[in-house]
């Protein structure tokens, strides 16, 4: 909890004020019987109406003051808990944004999302409660017990046994409880994951009529969550009757000992009454402890989950302090071997080739031959095992990561769009882009006409995955998003697959004027042919490299690919 508690540091003053105000309230609480005493002794007994009115008014005044203090307290407490939560969420988000891609894969999205909202709120609620009621109960118990010892040490001896016992017990409940709530939160994660899959994959689930199947899966996780929550709550709440019973038994014990001592004449009536009174107060306060124990064990479990993320070592992506810029877009892959972190066999093996500035290269190869993996190395989403990639003759690791990625326009295979307008999505590539730039990018991506046919044009909202657009439209939007950056290096990861050939041809024509090095993965020979050179990739190695004609002459596999595509078209051509 240490890391989490450090988030309270900036609010030291507010916390102090909140506690002071709560304390003042407590004092007022204790003062009122005292005022009443004066009123009775000085006013009623002496038949003095003015004294009664005076002390009555003082009480009313104190009431007004505590009211104002209370309201101010509310402001300070909420400020602490709301800002505390704000800061934790912000730190978490920033941390996750700076995770390496590898690290991110360790945490499913759903568990990260749960941590953000559910776990943070658990802690926030506890902090708010702690600021307002926590001081009262422990102070009351502590005060009562101290007072009891002052009044009569011998009679209070029983507390020496029960109090440490109770403290140990509460501590044990807290530890055990937080373990249980840790499990509960894990179950929340799991429920979330099934849920997320169901929402994301609803189309497939419906298509295969798997409602019952999914229902069973969800019920299983839902059941587990309900059971675990039930056990955890029951465990912590069962501690209260036990605490009460122990305290009540010690009360009875005091009565019994008190009776013995009174008969023996070693103690007086007043002492016994007072100590019984203090014991009763302690019993009252203890019912609040369960509440606290519950809140604390939940908060502890949640803190641990958040801390796990916050304490992940920082990514090594230290920003280089040089101003090296990518100006030409010359790329060189030098003996690159790469294995995915969770796999054994390398996906790329000893790969070498180079691209001159402004050149376009098509990557072609069978499914799983390493095309996308190769793409991910360039913006340094992953680091190769061995070998170096050079851009403009410098290793890519020497560039600041922002500069490197800034000069790349990446169009992923899966055209994921974000919630927002079409314009927002295009501008994701370049935030400060003007309206003209947005439209130009859209025109070049061959999507402008489509956009202006929508009723809201560029302000049309696209859903989370841009579902109300067709696959091809989404692809072209994600192309526009890359083009608007005017990158030095443009990368298409089979991003024209959903485009028909006419549209694709227009697109490729429009790209001519961008004057950048271009890498494009494709399945279509017709697309590949338009590139300056073609790289044929097979099982992670470069099988052949050169122009269409050169490959046609040299590579058997390439011939086969061409044949496979020609064969399909030719027989029908008359």
């Amino acid at each position: 909890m240490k890391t989490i508690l450090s988030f309270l540091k900036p609010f030291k003053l507010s916390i102090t004020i909140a506690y002071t105000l709560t304390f003042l309230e407590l004092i007022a609480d204790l003062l009122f019987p005292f005022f009443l005493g004066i009123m009775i002794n000085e006013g009623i007994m002496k038949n003095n109406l003015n004294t009664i009115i005076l002390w009555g008014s003082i009480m009313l005044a104190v009431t007004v003051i505590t009211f104002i203090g209370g309201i101010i307290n509310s402001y300070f407490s909420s400020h602490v808990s709301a800002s505390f939560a704000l800061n934790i969420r912000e730190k978490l988000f920033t941390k996750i944004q700076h995770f390496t891609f590898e690290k991110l894969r360790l945490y499913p999205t759903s568990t990260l999302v749960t941590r953000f909202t559910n776990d943070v709120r658990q802690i926030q609620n506890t902090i708010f409660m702690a600021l307002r009621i926590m001081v009262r109960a422990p102070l009351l118990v502590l005060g009562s017990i101290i007072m009891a010892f002052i009044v009569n040490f011998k009679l209070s001896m029983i507390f020496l046994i029960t109090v440490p016992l109770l403290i140990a017990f509460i501590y044990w409940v807290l530890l055990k409880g937080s373990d249980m709530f840790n499990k509960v939160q894990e179950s929340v994660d799991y429920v979330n994951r099934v849920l997320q899959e169901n929402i994301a994959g609803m189309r497939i689930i419906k298509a295969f009529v798997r409602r019952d199947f999914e229902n069973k899966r969800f019920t299983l996780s839902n059941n587990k969550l309900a059971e675990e929550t039930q056990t955890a709550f029951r465990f912590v709440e069962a501690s209260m009757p036990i605490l009460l019973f122990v305290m009540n038994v010690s009360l009875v014990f005091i009565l019994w000992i008190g009776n013995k001592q009174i008969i023996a004449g070693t103690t007086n009536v007043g002492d016994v009454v007072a100590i019984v009174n203090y014991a009763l107060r302690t019993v009252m306060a203890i019912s609040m402890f369960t509440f606290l124990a519950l809140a604390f064990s939940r908060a502890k479990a949640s803190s641990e989950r958040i801390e796990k993320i916050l304490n992940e070592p920082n990514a090594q992506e230290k920003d280089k302090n040089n101003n090296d810029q990518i100006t030409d877009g010359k790329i060189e892959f030098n003996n690159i071997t790469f294995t995915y972190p969770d796999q054994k066999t390398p996906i790329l093996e000893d790969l070498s080739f180079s691209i001159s500035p402004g050149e376009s290269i098509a990557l072609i190869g069978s499914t799983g031959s390493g095309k996308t993996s190769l793409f991910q190395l360039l913006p340094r989403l992953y680091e190769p095992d061995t070998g170096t990639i050079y851009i403009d003759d410098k290793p890519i690791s020497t560039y600041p990561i922002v500069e490197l990625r800034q000069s790349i326009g990446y169009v992923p295979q899966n055209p994921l769009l974000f919630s927002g307008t079409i314009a927002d999505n295009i501008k994701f590539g370049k935030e400060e882009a003007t309206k003209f730039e947005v439209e130009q990018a859209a025109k070049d991506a061959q999507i402008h006409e489509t956009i202006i046919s929508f009723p809201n044009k560029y302000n049309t909202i696209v859903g989370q995955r841009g579902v109300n657009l067709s696959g091809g439209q989404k692809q072209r939007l994600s192309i526009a998003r890359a083009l608007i950056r005017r990158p030095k290096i443009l990368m298409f990861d089979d991003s024209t697959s959903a485009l028909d050939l006419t549209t694709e041809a227009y697109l490729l024509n429009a790209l001519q004027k961008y004057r950048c090095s271009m890498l494009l993965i494709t399945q279509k020979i017709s697309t590949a042919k338009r590139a300056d050179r073609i790289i044929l990739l097979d099982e992670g190695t470069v099988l052949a490299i050169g122009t269409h004609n050169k490959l046609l002459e040299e590579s058997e596999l390439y011939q086969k690919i061409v044949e496979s595509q020609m064969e399909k078209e030719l027989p029908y051509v008359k």
Partner: protein
Amino acid sequence: MSSSELKQPFQYEKIPFERLQTKKEKRAKNTAGTIKRLSMYLIEEKWKLLLVILMVLLSSTLGLLGPYLVGMAIDDFIVTKSADGLSSLIIVLLIIYASYSLAIFFQNYWMIGIAQNTVFTLRKQLFEQFHKLSIAFFDKRQQGELMSRVTNDIDNINNTLNQSVIQIFSSVITLIGTVTVMLILSPLLTGITMTIIPLLFLAMNWITKRTGPLYKLQQDDLGELNGFVEETISGQHIVKTFSQEDRVIREFKERNKQLQLSGFWAQTISGYIPKVMNTLNFLSFALIALFGGILAIKGYITVGVIVIFTEYARQFTRPLNELSNQFNILLSAVAGAERVFSVLDEEKEESDEASAQELSHIEGHFAFNHVSFSYDDTLVLKNINFEVQPGQTVAFVGHTGAGKTTIVNLISRFYNYNEGEILLDGFELKDIKRSSLRSQMAFVLQDTFLFHATVRENIRYGRLNATDKEVELAAKRANAHRFIERLPNGYDTILDQDGSSISQGQKQLLAIARAMISNPSILILDEATSTIDTITELKIQEGLKRLMKNRTSFVIAHRLNTIQQADVIVLLENGMIVEKGTHDELMKKQGNYYTLYSEHRNKEV
């Protein structure tokens, strides 16, 4: 710095009251309705609930009886210094305390059970509801926001149910008891103590009018933040490659700030409640002292009554305090419940028409008669007419956005057509149960969705009772077997949900295997092979051909081979059919298809 920290709590931007109070009457009605609806879930388990109430009664009574007996013990055994009968009183006390603890234990134990059952049911209903909603519902909403309803909102309800019900009952019981005793002691002073009730009412009215909507706002903001986080994390590869981390963080901060603001006000204003109660507590104390003092001077009451009364006034405000606190907590649960219920009340487009029936066997004869469809007020398909014989293959051709995918969505009834009729084997599509229709269809869609599960389980998703052998056979026919064998754990390799451990093309191969294993009467291939290289495609093509034989197949593809072999080619443009026929017919006609085709051919050769 310290002086700015002093000001900070008062510098939060005010949320205009008007914004919260848009539909005042409606809101009050809503709140009452929501509470009523929520309590219906509790009443489901009326026996358990009755037991809880009994236990609360028992524990409240025993809670009062204990101290009373202790008082007696002091009078009888401490003050009088006698030990006769002390042991039996002590035994009685021990029994009372033991039963008191047991009663509390059971009231909690059962209440937690009820609360968890309720929450379980709510989650279950919400989940089932998701499956009954139309695809259009999901197309318009953010995943994370929907998820927030199942987790955050329901969690809110959970917390409330665990504590509030017991608190409310025990408070009411204590309140009734106290007022009775007070009335017996002095009706006049009771009247004075009661003057705080109108004040309490006014204050609570002022507060809850604000906190109710504020809680709702807070839950909405939380939902939105949830949605944003979910989206940016699942789209992290784009954020990273575009190096937009800073921007995303900034946008996050805005939403975070929004949540902080609504959270701040919800907490601050609900924080008034204990303060108001405390103040009213002091006030009644002061009033009793003041007026009691005056009355005592006049000789109407004794000092003893004043002392007792101030104690009882405390007893009286404590449960009131509890009640108003609980009311407030209840409001935050209501805000959550409202959001849950609003999804439960969404129209189920998925509920089949009353006339819908099961079709045990589908031949696969399709006829589209004057079908039109609009989405969000835009006409997407206009007057579509065509016919397919059982076992035929239909190919849809046209530019992106021409409406090809929409037709497929209508056939599978993801969307409901507005006009015209679609006949399957002579039955209107709307008269066939969706489950019966879809269970005889297999899909390979543009977006390949795989589950976080093993490769085997993912393929088996097409037919749950398929054996391991059948799974492998399907994988072989889809040409996926070779790459699966090379995965670290073969068929038992667990796939990431976003499938980042295998390539896009491999995902498509798995989707094809999944369709193969389901052995459907109708096959829908929407860009099924777009990311598969042509050599692999050639190999699958055979399998696909085998698969399509004797099954009515609808195919969307940009590559021409599948299209050429189709029995019917439908050329779409702007949602209308421009041409239809076989490849040869259309080529002879030398119309749009001919132009389109020649263009392609020129480019490809």
